[in-house]
């Protein structure tokens, strides 16, 4: 597989100009564990104060390593990390004042919930009375008042999760890191906790750096998402931008559902291009990430942006296909077709009053708007 990131330099917020305003700043950070391969290849990232930034990527993409470097558990092999304009590479973890929610919560099993919450206050030599007030307040915030006397083992997964969040916030850090905090919860609870964490973030105004491999979690919660792959940020954008305007094939493929078509560019102008699709047909697409005429490209089209057998094809790109499978999902019918030699082309047909019923094996015309189809870097297939 070629490296899809190579074509696109990772760009986020206006980096250098905004350096003073950035609360957390990774400056050309590299990390290697074995001296042979780089886990984080070259990371430049600015995080604004009060922002909810998610590091999203498949496992092994370097996102957790970045978090561990920020928390101080892993030294950066090269480069500098700044916290509030202060370089922190040489600051030990306990002096960074960063809150963290661990993957399996890491609640101290030999302490009660109250003692767990009081721990960061005690090591900061806070007076007993004030600590008690803060603990009570934190428990209230996560809706667990009255649970202070219990041991972590006596709590359910969701309750442990809340305690972990409360513990990371009780000493009022300006920055909180969360390392896949919802990974151990079931789906329903996970969704509920996503909203709760989001609300806590909004109410307290803390900066949150959140690591996950779950894209829906990232889309739900984040102000901005940094998509990691292969030790590089592939794209740093807001959730809607990331979904609607992916900059390369990896992001298009990783975020949401995506149809890909391969082809060669025949013509390019005004930000649009004509692409000769392998397997027949020529379509127009936005030239997002193509190198020029006569180069290979991968087209990306979201399943909900394509239409089957439209009333009129004026101004639309069309390809012929054949219906292979119909899956009834209530609000829409997931239709799998063979298009241009690929048998995994998905179209979501809304279950509206007027939609035409398709049959398996039927020929169909697929149509879409040029602006919904993005010509990206080629991936071999």
């Amino acid at each position, binding site marked *: 597989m070629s490296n899809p990131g190579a074509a696109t330099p990772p760009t986020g917020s206006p980096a250098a100009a905004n350096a003073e305003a950035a609360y957390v700043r990774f400056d050309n950070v590299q990390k290697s564990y074995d001296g042979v391969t780089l886990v984080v290849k070259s990371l430049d990232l600015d995080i604004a104060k009060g922002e909810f930034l998610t590091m999203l990527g498949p496992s092994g993409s370097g996102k957790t390593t970045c978090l561990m470097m920020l928390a101080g*558990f892993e030294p950066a092999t090269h480069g500098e990390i700044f916290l509030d304009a202060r370089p922190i590479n040489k600051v*030990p*973890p306990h002096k960074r004042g*960063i809150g*963290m929610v661990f993957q399996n919560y*890491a609640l101290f099993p030999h302490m009660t919930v109250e003692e767990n919450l009081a*721990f960061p206050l005690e090591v900061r030599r806070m007076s007993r009375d004030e600590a008690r007030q803060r603990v009570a307040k934190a428990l209230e915030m996560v809706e667990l008042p009255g649970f202070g006397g219990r041991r972590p083992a006596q709590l359910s997964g969701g309750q442990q999760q809340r305690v972990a969040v409360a*513990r990371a916030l009780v000493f009022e850090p300006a920055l909180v890191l969360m390392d896949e905090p919802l990974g151990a919860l079931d789906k329903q609870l996970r969704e509920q906790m996503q909203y709760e964490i989001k609300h806590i973030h909004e109410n307290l105004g803390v900066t949150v750096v959140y690591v996950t491999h779950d894209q829906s979690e990232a889309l739900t919660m984040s102000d901005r998402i940094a998509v990691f792959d292969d030790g590089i940020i592939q794209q740093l954008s807001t959730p809607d931008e990331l979904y609607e305007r992916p900059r390369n094939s990896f992001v298009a493929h990783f975020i949401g559902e995506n149809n890909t078509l391969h082809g060669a560019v025949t013509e390019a102008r005004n930000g649009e291009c004509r692409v000769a699709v392998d397997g027949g047909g020529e379509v127009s697409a936005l030239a997002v990430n193509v190198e020029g005429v006569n180069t290979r490209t991968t087209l990306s089209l979201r399943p909900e942006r394509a239409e089957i057998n439209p009333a009129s094809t004026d101004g639309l790109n069309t390809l012929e296909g054949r219906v292979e499978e119909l899956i009834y999902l209530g609000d829409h019918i997931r239709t799998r077709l063979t298009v241009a030699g690929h048998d995994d082309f998905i179209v979501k047909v809304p279950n509206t009053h007027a939609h035409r019923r398709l049959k398996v094996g039927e020929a169909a015309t697929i149509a879409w708007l040029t602006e919904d189809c993005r010509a990206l870097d080629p991936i071999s297939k």
Partner: protein
Amino acid sequence: MAANAIEIPTSASGELLTADGRPLKESLQRSLRRRKLTALALVAPAVVFLFVLFGMPVLYLMTWSVDDTLINEVLPRTFDIYEQWDGEALPPEPHYEAMFKDIADATGIQIGRGSTRMNYAKSKWKSLMKKTKRKIKALLNENPDFAGPYKETLLEIDKRWGDIAFWHSLDIMKNPYTAGYYLNAFDLKYGFDNEIIQQPENRRIYKTLWIRTLLISFIVTAACLALGYPVAHLLATLPLRYSNLLMICVLMPFWTSLLVRIVAWMIMLQQEGVVNDTLVALHVVDDENRLPMMYNFTGTVIVMVQILLPFMILPVYSVMKGISPAYMKAAQNLGAPPAIAFLRVYVPQTLPGVGAGVILVFIVAIGYFITPELVGGKDGQMIGNYIARHLRSTLNWGLASAMGVILLAAILILYWVYDRVVGIDNMKMG
């Protein structure tokens, strides 16, 4: 919510019933009974084994430690009328007659054993009994119809029969049960009138021995903990290939004979041993002042620590292995410097293993026998050595049993204290 529902039948008292009308609880018990019986059958051999080879001997031990019936069989007549004596002056003729006849009827073996027992109560009984038996035998050979006067005759045989102290000492032997062995084990004994008094100064050995046994066990346990804890931590945190190697080093002693290890220590620590030779060669000590590290207290402690170290390392290691490194990270992240994080978050979580290790090492140490026997010399002997001595050489099984029971009680008390302080459920052997 009104979903589909079935009517579950209940009895008059409100208990749930199964479909055939039996109470649910009863049905459940019936269905579980078979499984319980199978489980019971599986553990039965171990239970029987434990009872026959451990439980019964311990019960015997307890009986022996208080048993005092032997002497009652040897001197039945004497004890029958003993109560009639006021104890103020020497007993009257009937008592001497009873004693005479008892000694005359007893076999040589009975006199031997009995007089040994009598000697515990008062020294010189043994020689008195043996001499008297011999003389009476000779006298009866000469004159089978001898019928007194008994008092006069006995006093003639040995003037000690006129010593009231011997007669007083019989009082304590009359009872078929005695606490005498237990008193003996603490350098105490019965005096006249059954009051408890200390042994004469030159016969007090056990109190020092108990204190020394406890002291050695404490030192050995503490040393094992101090040496074993870091090793266990290393074992639990090193990458697998190094920790495996280290584990082999820890387990190596288990694959080596105890005697081989002790002899190795002798070679190392004796006066002309490797350690002393090295120290002399380095001019740390003079040739004349070589350190005495073998055949004494020091030698016992050093060798016992080496032998018992794995018993500390293994349970501590197994607990440490289960502690996620995330806890230390979390503690530091929350603002604790590494040392505080270690003491407040890591160490408390290792306590179940530490408790198990401490109990294990202490219990094994307190009854140790071979090591002090071989390297203990004079001041490195422990209570176990004396139990063995009384079992094998002096044949004072009563005293040996009493010491064994005291040892058992000491361990049970420790166990109880541990349970109260730490909680036995918290202990993890592995």
